[in-house]
C-alpha cells in the first residue's frame, strides 16, 4: 500500500512539474549547450555552422577593441548604477520608516517611476529630456545657466543619463528595505538608546547589520540585471557616442541579430554567463564577512 502510494507520488510530482521541466530542458538547458557548441563555429543561420575552433574567442579577446569597450562600459554602468540605486533606496526607506501622516502617499510617489521605468515610453521620454532642445537644457536656461550641452552626444555624460535612469527607479528596492526595516525589533533601538548610542551609531550597529541579508540579495540580483542591461542603451543612446554606452548585451545583440554572426554572439554570451557566475560567486564568498544572519548570532 505505502509502496503504491509512493510510486503514485513520483508520477504525480513529475506530472505537475512536467511543464516546467519540459520548458527547462528544451528552452533553457538545450539552448545553453547549443550556444556552447555554436561559440566554436561560424554561423550565419543561412548556411550550416562551420567549425572554427577558438577563433571567436581569439577575435573577441585579442582583435576586437569594441568588445573590450562594451565590457568596460557595462562594468562601469553596473558599478555606478547598482550602489546608487540601493543607496538611495535605503536612504529614502529610512526616512519613510516612521509613522507619520502622508507617508503612504510619498511612498507611492517614489515608487511611481519604478512602475513605468522599464517601458519604451519612458526611454523615448528620457531621450527627449537629455536632448539638445530637451527638458534638462530648458531647465538649466531657466536657472540662468548655459543650457546648450548635447548630453547624449557627449562621451562623458551619455552613460550617466542611463545611470540616472536606473537610479530613478529605486522604488522596488525601497519597498524591500521598508519591509526589512519593519522586521527589526524595536527593543534593539531602545536598549541602544539606554546605552547612550546616537542615531549614527544606531544606524551602523543595528540598522545596517540587520539589513545585510536584504542588501546582499538585492546586490546580487541587481548586479546581474545591471550586467545584462539592454533596452535603455538601444533606445536612448543607441550605444553611442564612441561606444561609451554600447553595453555588452547590446553589442551581443548587434553581432547576433544585425550582422548575423551567431557564433560570435554565442561566444560573447558564454563569456557573459561566466562573468556573471564569477562575480556572483565573489559576492557570495564575501558575504560571510559582511552579511549578518540573526540565527547565527543567537
Amino acid at each position, binding site marked *: 500500500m505505502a509502496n503504491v502510494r509512493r510510486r503514485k*507520488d513520483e508520477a*504525480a510530482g*513529475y506530472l*505537475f*512539474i512536467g*511543464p*516546467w521541466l*519540459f*520548458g*527547462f530542458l528544451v*528552452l*533553457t538547458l538545450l*539552448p*545553453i549547450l*547549443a*550556444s556552447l557548441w555554436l561559440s566554436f563555429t561560424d554561423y550565419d*543561420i543561412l548556411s550550416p555552422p562551420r567549425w572554427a575552433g577558438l577563433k571567436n574567442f581569439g577575435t573577441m579577446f585579442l582583435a576586437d577593441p569594441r568588445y573590450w569597450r562594451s565590457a568596460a562600459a557595462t562594468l562601469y554602468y553596473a558599478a555606478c548604477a547598482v550602489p546608487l540605486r540601493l543607496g538611495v533606496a535605503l536612504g529614502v526607506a529610512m*526616512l*519613510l520608516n516612521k509613522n507619520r501622516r502622508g507617508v503612504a502617499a510619498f*511612498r507611492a*510617489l*517614489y515608487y*511611481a*517611476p519604478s*512602475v*513605468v521605468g522599464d*517601458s*519604451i*515610453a*519612458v526611454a*523615448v*521620454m528620457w*531621450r*527627449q*529630456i537629455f536632448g539638445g*532642445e*530637451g*527638458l534638462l537644457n*530648458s531647465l538649466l536656461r531657466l536657472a540662468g545657466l548655459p543650457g546648450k550641452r548635447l548630453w547624449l552626444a557627449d562621451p562623458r555624460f551619455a552613460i550617466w543619463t542611463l545611470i540616472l535612469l536606473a537610479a530613478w527607479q529605486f522604488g522596488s528596492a525601497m519597498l*524591500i528595505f*521598508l*519591509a526589512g526595516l519593519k522586521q527589526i525589533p524595536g527593543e534593539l533601538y531602545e536598549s541602544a*538608546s539606554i546605552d547612550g548610542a546616537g542615531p549614527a551609531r544606531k544606524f551602523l550597529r543595528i540598522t545596517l547589520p540587520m539589513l545585510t541579508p536584504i542588501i546582499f540579495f538585492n546586490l546580487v*540580483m*541587481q548586479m*546581474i*540585471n545591471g550586467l*545584462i542591461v539592454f*533596452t535603455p542603451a538601444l*533606445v536612448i543612446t543607441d550605444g553611442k557616442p564612441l561606444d561609451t554606452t554600447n553595453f555588452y548585451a547590446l553589442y551581443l*545583440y548587434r553581432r*547576433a*541579430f544585425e550582422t548575423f554572426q551567431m557564433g560570435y*554572439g*554565442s561566444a560573447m*554570451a558564454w563569456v*557573459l*554567463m561566466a562573468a*556573471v557566475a564569477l562575480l*556572483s560567486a565573489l559576492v557570495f564568498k564575501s558575504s560571510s564577512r559582511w552579511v549578518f544572519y540573526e540565527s547565527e548570532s543567537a
Partner: protein
Amino acid sequence: MRAESRSARLAREACFYLAASLSSLAMIYPILWLAASSLKAPDELWRKVYSLVPERLTWANYTKGWSGFGGIRFEVFYRNSAIYAGLGTLFAVVSSAFVAYGFARIEFRGKGFWFACMLLTLMIPPQIQIIPQYVMFAKIGWVNSYLPLIVPKLFGQAFFVFMFVQFLRGIPRELDEAAAIDGAGRLTVFARILLPLLKPALFTGSIFSLYWTWNEFMTPLIYLNSPRRYTLSMALRSFSDPSGLTDWGAIFAMSFLSLVPIFALFVAFQRYLVQGIATTGLKG
C-alpha cells in the same frame, strides 16, 4: 526617548515634509512633463519645454498619434500589446501555479535538485539562450509570429513558481490532505481547493506579469518583423527613430497613452504590488 522641545520637533517635522514633498515632486516631474507635453500645441512644445501647464490645451497630438504611423493605426499596436499581455499573463500564471503545486505539496525523488535548477534560472542571463532559441523557432517557421513569445509561457515562469511555492507553504496541508482522504485526486485537489486559496498570490502574480509583458522589448524585437505585428513598445521605438522626421507631439501623446494601463493597474492594485515586492523580496 530623549526629551526634545516642542519647537525643535515641529521644525524637524516641517523639514521632513518639505524635503519629502520637493523630492517626490522631482521624482514624478518627468512623468507629469510627458503628460503636459502631450497636450501642448506644436509651437509651444519647444518654446517653454519645462512648463507643466500647456498654454492652450489641444488633443491634436492624440488624434494625430492615434491615426498611426506608416499607414498603420495606433490601435493595432495597442491591440497587439493587449492580447500579448493578456494571453501571456494567463498562460504564465496558470502554468506556474500548476508547477508550484508539484513543488510545494508532492514528495518525489529529485525534487530538491529540480527546484534548485529552477532558482538558478533566475540568475542566468537570457542572452545565453536567445540565439539557439531563435534558431530553433526559425527552423519551425515561428519567426514573425507571436508563438515564440507566448508558447514558452505555458511552461511556467521561475519567478512566479517560486512566489506561489512560498505562498503555498503558508497554507496548512490539512486542508488538501482532508480532501485527498475523501478520495479526491491530485488534479481535483489542486483545481478545487488550492487554486481558490492561491487567489491573492495569483492576483499579485498577474499584475507583475501584465507589467512585464506590457513593457517587454527584447523578445518582440528579435521575433517580430512586420510593423503590423509590432507591440506598442516596438511601435514607439521605431516611430521615434532619431534619424527620421519625428512628430514629437504625437510621440509624447502615444507614449503617455501607452503608460495609462500601467498607471491604472498601479493605482488600483498598489496594495498587492507593495505586498508582493515586500514578501518575495525580489525585484518588481
